């Protein structure tokens, strides 16, 4: 059996599944239930500075998009950081950490962007015995209007500055949580790195409006007829999060910096994908909020079976395995030629591949052969784009087959070269540099 134990920047947990800073980690009651269910760690719901707690709206705070059977695909929220008293939270954190010494308890913090505020809160958190802190530079609504959250996370200089203060005033490991509401995620990651952060975590939620009520013309969620953009999370954001994690993992300046992967993790498979792209562990929010804490059992057994099947002995063996395979477009092999193949045994004749290719792609699939409804790929037209595979409702009915080097590509009328060649040396590229392809 593979070893699922995780050591993330020195913070140990029995498994790499943490709950992200959010309602599931807002108080001891929830966190204790999570630990009983088997979660490896939590990032406590973000604490603010001492004083009157923030207030939340008293109407709905969530919007959502669903699949047909109301499967929750994306959630958005306009909740702020914890609205409970700082000292109540600190006392609970202390108690929970004492009662659950083998679990990771990290405390998320967001205070105004000045040295005094950070200097004031850090000792209070450290006193709880928590394992580390996470700097919430991500919250995209409400707090950002007050110069915190993503308002900080969007300015790399601020990120670096705050990280530096934290490293200066606490001995706890510092995880910097990044906002995805930025054009190039590498910039704040590099800044956090420069400030000396121990790790970054990402993504926080994405600015979004999930829906507009077409009777009242209010955005959802509607507070007395008006709405505001909220933070988007859940399965829908996973592809965005995966890319951002990968960008940081393969960036020359931040390569090797520990990453806690967040964003749409719903199953063990999602978690392993994040890890393969460089995340040392994952954090989960929406999936737990949708199904309850029990899902961690599925994640644990799924991860364990996967590692066993692959012959990996520990989680660390997966971390970063896919990173070398993430590259720039210019380095993709242009001599890799594929054609779609439709398995006639499996084909149910829905015709979706035909109409997709016919209307929107390359007119490469028949709909009729000898007067019979039949869908066959015309190699002389197929560019190998794979659209048909994605619209086909039958798994594995359409597959992409590689035309090996030396064989004829019916579309171009040329034999497929049997060597790797990319855009950097392509004759159509006015900027083509060298004879030998780079990378």
């Amino acid at each position: 059996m593979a070893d699922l134990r995780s050591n993330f920047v020195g913070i140990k947990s029995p498994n790499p599944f943490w709950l992200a800073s959010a309602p599931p980690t807002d108080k001891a009651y929830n966190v204790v239930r999570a630990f009983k269910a088997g979660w490896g760690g939590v990032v406590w719901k973000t604490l603010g500075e001492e004083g009157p707690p923030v207030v939340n709206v008293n109407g709905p705070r969530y919007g959502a998009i669903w699949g047909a059977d109301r499967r929750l695909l994306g959630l958005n929220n306009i909740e702020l950081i914890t609205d409970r008293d700082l000292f109540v939270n600190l006392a609970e954190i202390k108690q929970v950490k004492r009662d659950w010494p083998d679990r990771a308890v990290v405390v998320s913090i967001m205070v105004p962007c000045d040295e005094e505020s950070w200097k004031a809160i850090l000792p209070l958190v450290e006193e709880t015995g928590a394992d580390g802190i996470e700097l919430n530079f991500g919250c995209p609504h409400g707090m950002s209007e007050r110069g915190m959250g993503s308002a900080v996370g969007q300015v790399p200089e601020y990120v670096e500055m705050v990280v530096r203060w934290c490293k200066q005033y606490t001995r706890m490991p510092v995880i910097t949580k990044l906002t995805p509401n930025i054009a190039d995620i590498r910039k704040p990651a590099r800044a956090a790195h420069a400030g000396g952060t121990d790790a970054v975590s990402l993504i926080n939620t994405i600015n979004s409006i999930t829906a507009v009520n077409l009777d009242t013309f209010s955005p959802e969620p509607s507070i007395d007829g008006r709405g505001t953009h909220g933070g988007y999370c859940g399965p829908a954001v996973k592809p965005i999060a995966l890319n951002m994690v990968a960008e940081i993992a393969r960036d020359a300046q931040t390569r090797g910096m520990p990453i806690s992967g967040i964003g749409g993790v719903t199953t063990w498979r999602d978690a392993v994908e994040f890890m393969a792209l460089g995340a040392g562990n994952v954090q989960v929010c929406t999936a737990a909020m949708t199904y309850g804490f029990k899902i961690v059992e599925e994640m644990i057994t799924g991860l364990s079976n996967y590692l066993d099947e692959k012959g990996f002995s520990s989680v660390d063996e997966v971390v970063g395995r896919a990173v070398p395979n993430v590259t720039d477009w210019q380095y993709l092999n242009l001599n890799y030629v594929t054609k779609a193949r439709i398995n006639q045994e499996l084909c149910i004749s829905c015709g979706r591949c035909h109409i997709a290719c016919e209307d929107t792609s390359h007119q490469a699939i028949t709909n009729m052969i000898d007067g019979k409804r039949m869908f066959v790929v015309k190699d002389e037209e197929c560019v190998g784009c794979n659209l048909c595979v994605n619209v086909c409702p039958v798994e594995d009915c359409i597959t992409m087959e590689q035309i090996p080097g030396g064989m004829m590509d019916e579309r171009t009328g040329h034999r497929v070269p049997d060597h790797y060649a990319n855009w950097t040396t392509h004759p159509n590229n006015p900027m083509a540099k060298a004879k030998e392809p780079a990378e």
Partner: protein
Amino acid sequence: MAQGQFLTGIAAGRLAADQYAENFSDLHEPFSGHEARVEADRCYFCYDAPCMTACPTAIDIPMFIRQIATDNPVGSAKTIFDQNILGGMCARVCPTETLCEEACVREAAEGKPVQIGRLQRYATDVAIAEGVQFYERAAPTGKRIAVVGAGPAGLACAHRLAMHGHEVTIFDAREKAGGLNEYGIAAYKSTQDFAQAEVDYVTAIGGITIETGKALGRDISIGQLSEDFDAVFLGMGLGGVNALRSEGETAASNAVDYIAELRQARDLSALPIGRRVVVIGGGMTAVDMAVQAKLLGAEEVTICYRRGKEYMNASLYEQDLAAAAGVAIRHWLSPKAVLTADGKVTGIELEYTRLENGVLAGTGESLTLPADQVFKAIGQTFLAAALNGSGAAIEMEGGRIRVDGEGRTSMPGVWAGGDCVADAREDLTVAAVAAGRDAAESINRALMGGANG
């Protein structure tokens, strides 16, 4: 269990009072909005969809389903009504298992087609409940058309003619309009007086007058109609029934008559049914009769069919429906004599049959089944007598009215469609709708001097 359950002979009130409502409720529960959207999402929106080709009225099924999926049931209903103004009834009565749903690619993929019929019902129910009328009459043309028969064929024809701005008068021999929708379809397929609601919905377009209690051949004649109107459409269905050609036949009842009575009964507990019932036949009517006898509380109901299972006109789905209701289906049995004593049915004598060189023949061995009631459900016939007295005769073919590809009879200005004609179409509600609609287009072209006029 009600007292009447084991009453011998033919008796009413075999079930507890509340059991009737339960037994005769919807065969398929209507979808809720959410159920409909989930089911609609199963549709693959096929290219050149096979279901659409399989539908006799060629409804754009993928489109109407997509409109349901996108929470646009009213738009969906219009897509349906554009091709089939009786889409509501068809959603309830079509043997979808041999039409659209048989062709569904998900049937090929997993043996579980998209439930097209139930989705169609969902959309049409919404539109009818909201009273949305999609069609306006074109400017009046001044043309008047007589339609004989207010069944699916006649109603579909009338609606399409009204759309084109013509004035339509429908004559029907019965007391109520609707044809077999009102008098023939199994009660659990058309609940809550849907047939009348649909007639009202269809005629709400205006320009259609229905005169019930007016029979062609009795109160009106073809000759007179041809004189008074610019065109005539005959959608009279099948008024007669086939003969058993066995002894004691008069003691047997006609399934269609009994079903008509059942459909019109205000109080089903007052409708007498035998304790032991035998139904002769192998089609949809036989199944409907047998199942409804069972639902009325008959203890033992047996369908006897003179050929094997594979020859039955009732689809496998309907045979299963009968079996699930507790009906026994026996094959290779041909009726010889309906047995009576003191004027009451006591049983039926049947002879075993087999195919000899492709010809059905008796084996000589016979069987007697005890029965209190014997129903004939061996097919209906067209009563050509109604057409008599019109001077020029309308040509027949195989006992029904001969028509060309556009529904034109041999008599100028007279069209026909539905069960009463000899054409390639099956005797189904949806086929009658298609025939009526297409004849209306042909009539319109003829009257308005269109290209094919």
